[in-house]
Every structure is written in C-alpha cells, then in structure tokens.
C-alpha cells in the first residue's frame, strides 16, 4: 500500500494542539446512586502526538475522550486546548470549536445515510466553515482508498469502507485534534488494521494531535503514548515514545 502524497491532503490550518486535562472528575447520578466515572484524572498530550486511552470496560475511557473533545463537561477540573479552557466555555463557542478544531471518529460511523460518500465528507467541511473543494475531498478519499466510492451511499459500502469515510470526514476540515472512540470496534481484524494504518499515516502527515480509545493492545502499541485507566483513575501512563 502506498500513500504517495506530495502535499497536505487536507486544508491544513495549523499544527496539532496541546491538550491538558487537570484533575478531571465526572459524576453521574443513576437510579442506583452516584457513579464516579472519572476521579482526579490529569494528563497532558503533546501537540502532534498520538495517544491511546486503554482500560477495562466501564473504566471511563469514553467519558474522558468526550470531555477532552468538548462533548461532555466535567463535574470538576479543567481541559485546555493550547491556551483555551474549553471546559469553561459557554455552549455556543464550545459548539463552534467542536466543528472546527476537532475531528471525531466513533465506533458507529454515523454517516448520513441519505448523503453520498462525497457529500458526507463535504458536509463536515461546510460545518467547519471551510471552503467547498471537491478536489481536496477526492484526494483525501483517495488517500483512504475509497476514492472510487464517492458517489455511493453508506449502505452500499462495507464496514471498513464506511469507517474510512468516517476518518475522511474527521480530517477534511484540518482539525487540530482528532479523537477516535473505538474506531475499529465493529470491524474484522483486516479492516481494523487498515483503518488504523491509514488513520496513523494521515495523522503524521497532517500533524494533528491524535487521541484514540481502544481495547486492542496492538493498536495502543502503535501510538506514541498510552494512558491506562482503572475505575475512573489513572493507572499507568507510558511514553511518549521516541
């Protein structure tokens, strides 16, 4: 497989951001009582690095990713993206930041079923206020080896192809941070390896900061650093690797 691109595939705005989370606490009220999903988590993620968040089911991985990406507000603590404290932002600017500074990939691809592959990618650019550029979108889809599928609808693609389109959507607007929550959780081993390989290549090429939640040690081993959670607390931090 080759990824011979001379120039940035997407419209790069700036390098990846530094992410700093300090003393994060997240409580949920459930019928059974209070649940502490996160309890005093502090991590620093370097600009343009890749970090895996690992740990057993229910340890708070997705909650942490959601807070880092401005999808959730912590009960206590602070999240900074470079110098901006997103955990203290009002709803509207935080919503704007979600559309522009972040790219998200989830286990479910969440592609719009009545839009073609190309339209799904183009919509994200529009949401981020980036100019419509079919040639840029095609280059990106080519890089993810789904360039010939631009006219198809999501239900005409395999799971692995859909997830590669989801990666394209997460990258098309030149985000500073890409957050991936079990992006290969629904895929077979071969499709999974391809998605991760392409995600990492594009992360390096575009200089984004990449944070990935995974239960797969092989995926985690490919990242610069690993953050391990247990019962909502930081258990181990490894890296960054050279």
């Amino acid at each position: 497989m080759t990824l011979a691109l001379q120039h940035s595939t997407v419209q790069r705005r700036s390098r990846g951001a530094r992410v700093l989370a300090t003393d994060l606490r997240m409580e949920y009220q459930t019928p059974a009582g209070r649940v502490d999903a996160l309890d005093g988590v502090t991590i620093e993620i370097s600009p343009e690095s890749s970090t895996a968040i690992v740990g057993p089911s229910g340890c708070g991985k997705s909650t942490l990713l959601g807070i880092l990406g401005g999808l959730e507000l912590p009960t206590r603590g602070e999240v900074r993206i470079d110098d901006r404290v997103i955990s203290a932002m009002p709803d509207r600017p935080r919503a704007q930041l979600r559309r522009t500074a972040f790219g998200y990939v989830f286990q479910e691809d969440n592609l719009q079923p009545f839009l073609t592959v190309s339209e799904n990618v183009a919509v994200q650019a529009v949401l981020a206020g980036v100019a419509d550029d079919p040639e840029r979108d095609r280059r990106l889809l080519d890089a993810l080896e789904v360039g010939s599928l631009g006219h198809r609808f999501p239900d005409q693609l395999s799971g692995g192809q859909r997830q590669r389109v989801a990666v394209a959507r997460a990258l098309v607007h030149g985000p500073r941070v890409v957050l991936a929550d079990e992006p290969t959780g629904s895929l077979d081993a071969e499709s999974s390896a391809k998605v991760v390989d392409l995600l990492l290549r594009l992360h390096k090429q575009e200089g984004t900061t990449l944070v990935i939640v995974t239960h797969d040690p092989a995926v985690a081993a490919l990242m610069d650093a690993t953050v391990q959670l247990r019962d909502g607390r930081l258990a181990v931090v490894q890296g960054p690797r050279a």
Partner: protein
Amino acid sequence: MRLRGVTKAYRTTRETTSVLRDLDLDLHRGEIACLVGASGSGKSTLISVIAGLLRADAGSVFIGGQDVTELSDSQRAHLRATKIGLVLQSGNLVPFLTAAENVALATRLAGTEATSAHVASLLDQVGLADRADHLPRRLSGGEAQRVALAIALANEPDVLLADEAVGQLDSSTAKVVLRSIERACEERELAVLLVTHSDEIAALGSRKLRLRDGQLETAS
C-alpha cells in the same frame, strides 16, 4: 406517492435475486401505511428505491408529480432533501452536533438556512423543546429518534419514510415516537410509509401492507 411496476433484483456473478416484482402502491396525504414482511423480504430495498437511494430496474416512483426514476443523481438528491423525510432505525444524528444543530443542518442541506425559531418549533412539535442544546450522547433512544423525526420534517416533505424507526426502542418509548409521527401526519397531511416487524405497531396505521414474494398485499 404512486409506484407502478417497480422491479428490483440484486445480481451477483452466480445468481440473481428478485426482491421487488412489478410492484404497485398508492399512498395518499394524511395516510399512514404500515409495511410488514419477513426479514429479507425487501422492505428496506423498497424504501431505498422510493427515496432514490437505489435505482429500480424497471417501473416508476412518483412523488409530488415527479418520477424519481427519471431524475439525475443531483435531481434525486434535491428531491430527497426537499420532498422526502427519512427516519431510519438509528444513526441519523451527527454525534458532535446538538439536537438543534442537527435539525438546522437538514435545512442547510436542502439549500435554506433555518431560523432558530423554526428549529425550536420543530423540536417543540416532537416534544423536545428542552433538549435543543443536548448532544446525541445525552439523549435517550426515544429522544434521538424524535430528533430524527424533527430532521425529517424540517424541509416540509410530502412523504415520510420510516424504516424500523422504533425498532430499537422499548414498547412505551416506541409509542411516544409513533404518536409524534401520527401527529405530524395529521397536521402536515403527510403520506407516511412505516416499515416495522411488529404487528402491534402495524395495527396503528390506517393500512397494513405485507411484502411477500416481491409484491405488496393487504394484510389483516
């Protein structure tokens, strides 16, 4: 909505499977037709053909006087965005947009900018006025499907297609979503085609149809 002689088969190098055979259907404004049928009987294929997501091999699909099968890709996309509301089982919402932003996106895709009052009104109609600023991950399954319904209604469609729209919900939550669909059908005089595997849900429609051997029959 009028279908005449709609035929669709899936072909592989080894075999051809006929899914829809010379199928006819008339669906009028203010009518809810519930479509049942065994798994693999072609219910979702029929929805995709009506919505112009799949091309029929033969036949016509008229929506608002236009034959979907005669339109170019871009014309079908425009028709889908403006005349057809589509609610699927799940996955209709963009996860990093709030409920209100998801609804506004639907109008933007149809080429218009929604006012915040229009978005608020749509969410109010499905009983979610207080969920406008919630992200999908903070909505229950029933709430997410009602946001999907608000999205489907955002561009004043003529036809609403619901493909197992309540298939993943418990019975009481499903009924809340179905009541919202019924209300929308009545107030907006929508033609609604609701695919379900549940006979209980199918009994709520004004008509019950069964897809068997590629053709529609009236079900009891």
